[in-house]
């Protein structure tokens, strides 16, 4: 099968229809709070059994791509991130909506997602083998430093420093709840069986962001409500503006690609790293969290870039690094396709159709996004008294469907109250999310490092700094730390 045939296959109407359907489903599940790409993919998994493997894969790939973008729509319009990765989009996009610039914010989101998606897929197409080998270099020590860099970035996010400090430790603390993987002892479970499996990040985000926002909306007087304003802005202006920030797009995509390669790290870290970096280099850091498009560009390009790169270790090594890619691996396994280097030799039709087809998912996402924005923005025309109850029931449902567990709804509710109080007392919420995401990563890799260091009879520090890569990463953490401190000093003097 030569490449021309593969290309013609992708461009056939049937395949294009599947891709568009996948992306549309992805955008919808992404936009609904609590549902995300992974849930959409597991929903449609049974359908792929009856399809040809490469077609089924493209359906799932389309959902994955669309899901990464969809979350930003509700984030920008309602301050309710449909997905964890859209949290920065809410932080920057919603202030823009309040200023009547919702359409502009949505354009920034879709076109940044497009650039990120394209770069991620290009990397998938051209650099899969070397990057997969590179990803293998990351052992416990390296992963620990990566996670640490994510913690340090929090310092750049703004807010009272002590409140941020508390928030991040609170998030880390939440991550320790549950049966610990190393000794299987129960930590802070208060004897509740549901707490044994720990608190995952989705109900936390639903509580802190969605429910807290809706709480504060429920009692709002009419004059405080955001209304829709027609705005004259063309797509070309926005694209040109994004291209003016090409370093931001490039860096966001690179951070997304890099973090996406590493198993178990997750897109959330990439998004916040990129967002923090955008704030660091920005000429107007004080505009952040007041509606700065730079934040949207950085975050949205990063999350869509991870789509391509998380597929790299999956296809090249059979290592699924995230829940989403694990489900995609399951879809391949059922078709009897063995992942790993031999995939490209034994089933080139599947492998190449899939990676080239991923480019079409970006196209489909851009088309749907760029032309749908007019209609998305109509959400703002709906009165708050209809939106609030709708978002509330969707949020309850989303909290449940992550693990089909009613207890997750309770967690979201409790954190909703906490979030509403924190919001009104100036405690930043994003560091809590980062803490929850990174806590497990930091702890497990620290314990793994300790075990291995003990086995090799060296000290922890000796083990952690054997690899040049680890040393380089530690240096990176130190540099970020220094820069953040300097930024804080500058902000204080202003």
């Amino acid at each position: 099968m030569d490449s021309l045939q593969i290309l013609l296959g992708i461009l056939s109407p049937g395949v294009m229809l599947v891709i568009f359907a996948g992306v549309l489903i992805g955008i919808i599940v992404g936009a609904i709070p609590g549902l995300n790409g992974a849930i959409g993919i597991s929903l449609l998994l049974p359908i792929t059994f009856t399809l040809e493997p490469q077609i089924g894969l493209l359906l799932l790939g389309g959902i994955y791509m669309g899901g990464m973008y969809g979350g930003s729509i509700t984030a920008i319009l309602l301050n309710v991130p449909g997905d964890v990765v859209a949290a920065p989009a809410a932080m920057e996009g919603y202030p823009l909506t309040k200023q009547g610039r919702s359409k502009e914010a949505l354009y920034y989101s879709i076109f940044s997602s497009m650039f990120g998606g394209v770069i991620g897929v290009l990397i998938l197409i051209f650099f899969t083998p070397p990057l997969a080998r590179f990803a293998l270099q990351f052992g416990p020590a390296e992963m620990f430093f990566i996670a640490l860099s994510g913690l340090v970035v929090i310092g750049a996010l703004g807010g009272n420093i002590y409140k941020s400090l508390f928030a991040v430790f609170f998030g880390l603390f939440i991550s320790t709840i549950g049966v610990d993987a190393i000794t299987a002892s129960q930590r802070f479970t208060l004897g509740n069986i549901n707490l044994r499996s720990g608190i995952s990040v989705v109900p936390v985000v639903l509580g802190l962001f969605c429910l807290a926002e809706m709480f504060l909306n429920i009692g709002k007087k009419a004059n405080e409500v955001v209304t829709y304003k027609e705005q004259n802005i063309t797509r070309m202006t926005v694209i040109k503006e994004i291209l003016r920030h090409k370093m931001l797009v490039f860096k966001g995509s690179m951070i997304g690609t890099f973090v996406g390669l590493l198993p178990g790290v997750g897109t959330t870290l990439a998004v916040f790293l990129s967002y923090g970096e955008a704030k660091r280099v920005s000429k107007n850091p004080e505009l952040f969290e007041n509606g700065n498009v730079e934040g949207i560009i950085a975050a949205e390009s990063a999350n869509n870039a991870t789509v391509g790169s998380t597929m790299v270790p999956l296809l090249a090594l059979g290592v699924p690094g995230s829940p989403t890619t694990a489900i995609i691996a399951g879809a391949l396994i059922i078709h009897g396709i063995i992942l790993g280097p031999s995939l490209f030799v034994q089933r080139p039709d599947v492998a190449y159709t899939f990676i080239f087809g991923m480019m079409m998912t970006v196209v489909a996402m851009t088309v749907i996004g760029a032309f749908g924005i007019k209609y998305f923005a109509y959400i703002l025309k709906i009165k708050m008294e209809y939106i609030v109850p709708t978002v509330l029931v969707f949020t309850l449902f989303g909290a449940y469907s992550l693990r089909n567990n009613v207890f997750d709804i309770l967690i979201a509710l409790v954190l909703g109250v906490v979030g509403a109080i924190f919001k009104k007392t100036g405690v930043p919420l994003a560091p809590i999310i980062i803490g929850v995401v990174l806590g497990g990563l930091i702890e497990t890799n620290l314990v793994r490092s300790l075990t291995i260091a003990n086995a090799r009879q060296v000290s922890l520090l000796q083990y952690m700094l054997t690899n040049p890569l680890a040393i380089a990463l530690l240096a990176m953490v130190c540099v970020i730390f220094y820069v953040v401190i300097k930024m804080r000093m500058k902000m204080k003097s202003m």
Partner: protein
Amino acid sequence: MKKKLVLLIALTLTLSLFAMGCNDNGGEQGAFPNGNIQIIVPYSAGGGGDTVARILADALGDELDVQINVINREGAGGELGIAEIAASDADGYTLGVFGYPDNFVLEHTRDTDFTFDDLEYLAAFDDMPMGIFAGPGSEFETIEDIIAYGEANPGGITIGESGALGLLHVLAFSDHLGIETSPVNFEGGGELMNAILGAHVDLASTSSMSHDPIMDGGGHPIGFAAAERMDMFPDVPTFKELGFDLEMGVSRVLVVPAGVPDEVKTVLTEALDAIGNDPELKERFENAALPYRYLDYDRVNEVLQRSNDTLLPVIESNQQRFE
């Protein structure tokens, strides 16, 4: 306009009332089954156990001519989902699929809400032995290399594992070899694979399903904890041949909560026999790199009981490692 609105409202109201009243899980009268069946899987979507459940849901749904939905109820290494299966209504409309002996290991290492006998085991579908693998460029070619190094450096060999059974296998393996090793826990198969292919751990303890990706990545198997050599991988020795009487593996079982009426059980076991002995199902399993072995109702209970008797001493002798 207003009339239309009222009509619409009335319509949706009836619909939602209907939604509230109707229970998806089966009807009240008539022969079993006359409603949707659900299969609870105590793992997240995408893994081996989930794959088995989805293949079975498809085949069994066709056989019984009903819709079968797979519900992933992950958490705490399978504990939450298994507890939910055990606590669900014993009417035959809730089934469970998971990898035995996860329930047995969990029951004896933690304070679980279920026991082995809270479930009724209707059939088993595969038999996947655990194995020990070495990464690319490893100095451990054979089991003798491991013993030699392990005796010289007690605790010096790191073995990556994931899941309750993974750790148990590492401990039993070390016991049989008479050496001390350092188990390193990983959250899932993906992370473990990354660690072994990147040579961050010396060996990995995982099921035979990982054979192909590890070989592809330049690693090699040391041996499988199987009774005899596997048809899929005839070149890999068993620990038995190497002189170590170690057998340990995962077997995906289909269960119902204890107390399901006999007539319902008969319908289910007959349907399971029909699909279980169908070569098409075998082919679908083998396509997915799952070594097929169908055990019917009588045989599965006999085999599991025997396996429990051999596992219990291993768990008990390593009890302190789980606390």
